[in-house]
């Protein structure tokens, strides 16, 4: 088994991201000019990124794993490796890790707490907020595995990569295959009428799942049409009027009650609140998210075959 396999995606030896360290001022100015263009022409590119390693690559499978995101914790638990966990993020809510030390969040990991746990594997979902801390920890000798979790393909690749790093490649392949089977069973479960659906993350401002988002991918998978599919970017801010005009059959409220505002009155009859946190957990629970979509969008029979 090749323990360093995840790094072969080509990014393995780039220190946490592709920005050159010695970027010149002129280069920066040129990039800023490029952004002006990019702001208009949004990239919809949802290509899967390969997981990659930072810091030392240990010879033996790890015995003390620290995770910086609930999805990653759930991947480890799903692989039956929960007893290896030594610390988790402060957003983790799985019962099995309730007693474990917390090491900060997605944007604000607590470096001293992580180092003090002496992890021999740190699982990270990349964010600009944790980049500096994670790079520093890797430089201080903590083995790091960085796992992009932007879409279903990313997630399946990451599950295999985590399993491989834990020395359980077979379990990873089995878990990924199980998820793929479950998803293909749920494919097109929304029925033939392809209901127009809007997934709302926040009501004020009105932020919805756009093209390239995780929710958009799940909507397409279950056979619904994302009412925000024509918009720019994965998390566009919509005008209320545009939402009313687009006449979604379902409005799925994934705001979790955050934002302090209530769903828009004219849409009230179509709003369904998403009950689970699975929508925000690109890991084994993405099946749960797809099942919940099926139950809402096709409540009559929830048929398994099309």
């Amino acid at each position, binding site marked *: 088994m090749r323990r360093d396999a995840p790094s072969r995606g080509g990014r393995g030896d780039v220190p946490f991201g592709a920005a050159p360290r010695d970027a010149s001022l002129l280069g920066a100015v040129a990039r*800023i000019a490029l952004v002006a263009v990019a702001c208009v022409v949004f990239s919809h590119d949802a290509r899967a990124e390969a997981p990659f390693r930072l810091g030392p690559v240990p010879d033996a499978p790890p015995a003390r794993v620290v995770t910086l995101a609930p999805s990653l914790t759930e991947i480890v638990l799903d692989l039956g490796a929960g007893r290896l966990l030594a610390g988790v993020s402060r957003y983790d809510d799985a019962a099995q890790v309730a007693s474990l030390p917390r090491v900060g969040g997605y944007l604000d990991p607590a470096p001293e707490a992580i180092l003090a746990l002496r992890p021999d594997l740190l699982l990270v979902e990349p964010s600009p907020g944790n980049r500096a801390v994670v790079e520093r920890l890797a430089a201080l000798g903590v083995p790091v595995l960085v796992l992009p979790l932007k879409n279903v393909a990313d997630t399946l690749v990451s599950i295999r990569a985590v399993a491989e790093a834990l020395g359980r490649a077979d379990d990873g392949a089995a878990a990924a295959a199980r998820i793929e089977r479950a998803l293909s069973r749920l494919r097109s479960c929304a029925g033939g009428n392809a209901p127009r659906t809007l997934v709302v993350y926040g009501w004020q401002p009105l932020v919805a799942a756009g093209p390239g988002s995780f929710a958009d991918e799940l909507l397409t998978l279950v056979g619904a049409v994302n009412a925000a599919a024509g918009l720019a970017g994965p*998390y566009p801010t919509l005008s209320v009027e545009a939402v009313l005009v687009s006449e979604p059959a379902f409005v799925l409220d994934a705001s979790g009650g955050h934002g302090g505002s209530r769903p828009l009155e004219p849409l009230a009859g179509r709003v369904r609140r998403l009950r689970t946190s699975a929508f925000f957990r690109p890991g084994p629970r993405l099946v749960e998210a797809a099942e919940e979509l099926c139950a809402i969008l096709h409540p009559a029979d929830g048929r398994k075959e099309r």
Partner: protein
Amino acid sequence: MTLPASTETATLARRFSPARLAAIVALLAAIALAVFAAAAALGAERISFGAALLDAGSLDARILFGLRMPRLVLGAIAGAALSAAGAAYQGLLRNPLADPFVLGVSGGAALGGTLALVAGSLLGGSALQGGALVTTAAFAGAVVATLLAFAAGTVGGRLDPTRTLLAGVVFNSFAAAMITILKVAVSPEKAQELLFWLTGSLGYESGSTLLLAGIAVLIAMAVLSRQAHALNLMVLGDDAAAALGVEVQRTRLVVFFAASLAVAVAVSLTGMVAFVGLIVPHLMRLAFGPDQRLLVPASALGGAAFLVAADLGARLLFVPLGTELPAGAITAIAGGPFFLLLMRRRSM
């Protein structure tokens, strides 16, 4: 508005002398060292200096030298830069409200950094685009804002303080609006991260970055110290200063750019750490009088101590939650009331 302490407080006891400068610098250096020692000793984990010094591979050493020291050094550099620049701006523009942020320098840096962050998410398609790019873009933004404020404030070859300040205020509003617009283009997580960066927080920079930043800030401070006497005379008014042999326009230009260099370095590495550049120079003026030759070094040392102390608070306060607060939040929360209290007691 005039500088508060320019007349009555300039009593005999407050007159400048090399001995007085040395005494004040020694006092502030001792305070700063005590704060640095506390910041190195305290944190989320308990460490032993002995173990850290004896065994370079120990957990204690990695926490002390890998995590706490780089942050401490960054805090000291940024705090010194912002405070010394604040003292210079206040003297230069003869306005007690002048600070690095009012002049638009910080707004420019924030806009530059934001553009780079947005570029990272849009061009790379990846959330992990580098900090070096953000830092460089923030620096470029600060330089551009400085040039704009200077150009807008220069009328007929003379720098008009009020116009310069107004140009800075306007540019800050413009930058804030641009950032709001750019936020729409990024994901909620990205927007949250942006907010964190804008609040001002101390991260982990490489040794070479810290060295470079330290050298740049030292050069800026050396320039400001050299111009301190000229700035003192300029409080009397441009014509009086010119009569005393001060090259008024040249002094303004040099001080403006030296201070802006220091601010650009600080903001590009730490984001918008509020209040340090406003409060510390005023504290020093209340304590030691308005002489710029004292104010610049005193503000630098005081600012370094103040920001490192604030970051220590930011690291310690939220340990139970397993997270950290941006240092900028602490400087504003702790600095504001303290400053008001002091101002009342001194009835300035």
